[in-house]
């Protein structure tokens, strides 16, 4: 079994350090990591990192992080439009700092070796280590596919919107269409307390 610490090196994507070849089984993700991630980096929209196996230089896994947030507007749906017009937004708005996992993928060549969980452990610990106390949540807009949702649930993420219908309503989607992604979040507070007291 491959170990991200002992067997790999982490590299940040830039125009000089690109991911030459990568296949995680999802064409959109592959295209993003190979073609778009340097542009994303240059536009200051997010940082992509990838792990390379030291012995073979093969890309093992990759992920992209961006600064983000979770905002709550504490009014019932039915009243929000009316009240929004009359009351300053700040009175009801709460904003929590979060880090968005924009993309995450493990190469098919290294599938079924527990790398997805290792990578998630690393991302969580990195948020606490590198970001300090500036980030409370990890959020992800996960593909609404059983194996993907299961992966995040297994890693203790929970749904941000209680139902698919609520999420569709929020994004103004037609209720008859299937929802392609689900927002999920992980609260870093308890992990931080367990590690640092």
């Amino acid at each position, binding site marked *: 079994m491959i170990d991200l610490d002992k067997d790999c090196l982490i590299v940040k994507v830039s125009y*000089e350090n690109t991911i030459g070849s990568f296949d995680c089984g999802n064409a959109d993700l592959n295209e993003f990591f190979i073609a778009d991630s340097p542009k*994303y980096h240059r536009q200051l929209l997010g940082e992509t990192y990838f792990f390379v196996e030291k012995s073979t230089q093969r890309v093992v896994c990759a992920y992209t992080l961006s600064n983000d947030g979770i905002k*709550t507007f504490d009014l*019932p749906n039915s009243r929000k439009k009316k009240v929004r017009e009359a009351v300053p937004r700040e009175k009801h708005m709460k904003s929590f700092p979060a880090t968005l996992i924009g993309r995450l993928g493990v190469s098919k060549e290294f599938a079924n070796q527990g790398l997805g969980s290792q990578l998630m*452990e*690393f991302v969580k610990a990195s948020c*606490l280590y590198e970001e300090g106390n500036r980030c*409370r949540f990890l959020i992800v807009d996960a593909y609404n596919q059983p194996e993907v949702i299961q992966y995040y649930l297994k890693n*203790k993420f929970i749904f941000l919107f209680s139902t698919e219908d609520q999420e569709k309503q929020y994004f103004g989607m037609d209720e008859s269409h299937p929802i392609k992604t689900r927002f999920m979040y992980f*609260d870093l507070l308890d992990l931080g307390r367990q590690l640092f007291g």
Partner: protein
Amino acid sequence: MINMTEWGFIFGGEFVFLITMALEIRRTPVLYGEDAKRFLKEIEHPEQFKDSRSKEELLAIMEKTKRIWAEYHASKNDRP
């Protein structure tokens, strides 16, 4: 006047990329009503995110993470 080559660049390059990214950024979540209340209640109880591993195991993960970043910072991999 913009010639066909320039239009090709605009629609095939960074312009399309920026529109795509703008659409993506627009998805930053805002919770209203019952969802907001539920979320605010959930985060009062962060123990539901508690890791089942022991403190020693979690500290080992943190040490491993620190080693990976130390190696990264010591290399040239963090140059923009």
